[in-house]
C-alpha cells in the first residue's frame, strides 16, 4: 500500500508518493489546464475521496476566477467540468470567490464544499456539480458574519458528526471565520450555533452566541472536537449541549490555525502554535508541532527532525492532516514551502518536500 500526499500551494498543485512514509517522490507543479493558468494559481483546498480515490483541487486563478478540478488517476491528469461546478444561484446576488474546504459524505457521490463568501455547497455527483445549501445561506445570523483576515469563508466541514457518540448521516458541523461553529442534525435543513465557551476578544461580548473567529475544528475518533480559535484552544464532547473547554495550558501560545486529530485515539491531537494575532511566526522561531495524548490536559513538543535554525513559516489552517491509516501518518506544510511527515509510531519528522511555494493545504491517503 502506497501513500499519496496532495499539496496545494500559493502557486500550483504538487503530489508526493511514498511506500514507507519516509522517502517521498514529489511531482509538480501539476499542469491542470492547457494554458497552465490554473496550474500556476493558488490552490486553497484539496481533497481525496475516500471511496473512489478521486482527487479534488479548488483553484482561484488571479485573472479568470475560481474552479474545481478533479483527477481520477492520482494526479497524473486533471479535468474541469464544462460548467462552473460551484456557482451561486442568481437570486443570491453573490459570486464565488473560492472554495476553502472539501469534505466527503456518507457515500461516494456526496461531497461538501465550504466556500467564500460564507456558504456551504453539496455535490451529489462526486464533485462535478454542487448546489447551495439554502438553509445555511438563509440563516438569520449570516448578515452578522464578517470576514476574518483570510476572507469570509466556511473553512471547516465535518460531515456525520455532532459530538462524542453522536454520529448520523444527516449531521454536519461547520466552522467559519468569522461566525463560529454551526451544526445541523437534519441534513442541512436547519442550523444552530454551537459556540458556548469560545471567546471572541474582538467583540464587545466576549462570549457571544456566535461571531467567533474559529480557525479550525477537527473531529476526534469518538466524535468529540478540538478547536483552534483566534486565541484559544478548545475541546468539546458536545458543543451544542455542554459548550467548549479551554485546553491551551501547556502550549506555548493560544494562537494558531491548524489542528489535527488522531484517527483512532480520541485523546490525541496535534496543534501548531503561532505567536499571536499580531505576530504570525512560530513561537521562539522554532518550527514545532505540539501533541496531546490526554485530551488537551497536557501538551509536548514534537520536533525531532524539524529545522533547529530560526524558522518563520507557520502552518495554515488546512496545511496539516492525517492519512487515517491503521498506524496513522501526520503531515504538515509551512508558508516557507517545507512539508514534513511523521508516523504515529515514529520518533522524528521526515521531510517530504522543501522550497515549494507557500503551502496552503495538504491531504493524505492510502492509494
Amino acid at each position, binding site marked *: 500500500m502506497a501513500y499519496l500526499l496532495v499539496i496545494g500551494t500559493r502557486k500550483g498543485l504538487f503530489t508526493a508518493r511514498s511506500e514507507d512514509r519516509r522517502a517521498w517522490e514529489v511531482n509538480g507543479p501539476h499542469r491542470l489546464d*492547457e*494554458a497552465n493558468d490554473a496550474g500556476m494559481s493558488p490552490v486553497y483546498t484539496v481533497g481525496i475521496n475516500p471511496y473512489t480515490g478521486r482527487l479534488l483541487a479548488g483553484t482561484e486563478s488571479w*485573472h*479568470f476566477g475560481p474552479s474545481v478540478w478533479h483527477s481520477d488517476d492520482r494526479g497524473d491528469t486533471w479535468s474541469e467540468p*464544462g460548467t462552473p461546478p460551484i*456557482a451561486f444561484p442568481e437570486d443570491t446576488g*453573490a*459570486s464565488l470567490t473560492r472554495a476553502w474546504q472539501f469534505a466527503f459524505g456518507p457515500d461516494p457521490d456526496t461531497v461538501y464544499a465550504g466556500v467564500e463568501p460564507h456558504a456551504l455547497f453539496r455535490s451529489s455527483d462526486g464533485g462535478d456539480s454542487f448546489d447551495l445549501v439554502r438553509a445555511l445561506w438563509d440563516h438569520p445570523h449570516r448578515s452578522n458574519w464578517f470576514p476574518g483576515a483570510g476572507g469570509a469563508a466556511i473553512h471547516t466541514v465535518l460531515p456525520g458528526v455532532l459530538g462524542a457518540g453522536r454520529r448520523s448521516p444527516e449531521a454536519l458541523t461547520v466552522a467559519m471565520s468569522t461566525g463560529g461553529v454551526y451544526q445541523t442534525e437534519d441534513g442541512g435543513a436547519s442550523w444552530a450555533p454551537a459556540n458556548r465557551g469560545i471567546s471572541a476578544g474582538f467583540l464587545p461580548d466576549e462570549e457571544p452566541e456566535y461571531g467567533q473567529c474559529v480557525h479550525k475544528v477537527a473531529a476526534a475518533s469518538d466524535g468529540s472536537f478540538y478547536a483552534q480559535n483566534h486565541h484559544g484552544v478548545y475541546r468539546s464532547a458536545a458543543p451544542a449541549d455542554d459548550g467548549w473547554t479551554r485546553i491551551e495550558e501547556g502550549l506555548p501560545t493560544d494562537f494558531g490555525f491548524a489542528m489535527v486529530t488522531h484517527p483512532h485515539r480520541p485523546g490525541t491531537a496535534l496543534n501548531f502554535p503561532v505567536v499571536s494575532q499580531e505576530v504570525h511566526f512560530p513561537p521562539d522561531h522554532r518550527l514545532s508541532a505540539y501533541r496531546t495524548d490526554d485530551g488537551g490536559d497536557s501538551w509536548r513538543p514534537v520536533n525531532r527532525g524539524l529545522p533547529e535554525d530560526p524558522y518563520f513559516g507557520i502552518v495554515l489552517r488546512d496545511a496539516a492532516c492525517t492519512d487515517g491509516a491503521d498506524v496513522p501518518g501526520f503531515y504538515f506544510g509551512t508558508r516557507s514551502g517545507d512539508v514534513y511527515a511523521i508516523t504515529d509510531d515514529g520518533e522524528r519528522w521526515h521531510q517530504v518536500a522543501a522550497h515549494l511555494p507557500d503551502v496552503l493545504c495538504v491531504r493524505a491517503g492510502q492509494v
Partner: protein
Amino acid sequence: MRVTVHLTSVLRADAEGAAHVPLEVVDGAALGGVLDELAARHPGLDRRIRDERGELRRYVNVFVDQDECRSVGGLDAPVHEGADVRLLPSVAGG
C-alpha cells in the same frame, strides 16, 4: 452588425483554439450583448470573463477598440459595426 473578439492565448483553449471570434450581434448592442453572444458560441469562455452575477472579473481587461471598457460604461459600453473587442489578462499575481 459584425464585431470581432480577439482572445489572449490563455483563453483560446475555451474557444476551440480560436484567436479571433467573428460575431454577428444585433445593431446597437452594447459590450454585454457581445459577451452574451460570445458565451452562446463558446460557453466555457464566459466563466473566465464574468462571474455568475454577470460581472466582469476584476483582473480581466476588455478593450473596445482602444478603450478599456470600464472607462466607457463597462458592460454598457457602446459597440459599433466592425469593432474589435480584445480580452486581455490584467496585471495580477505574484
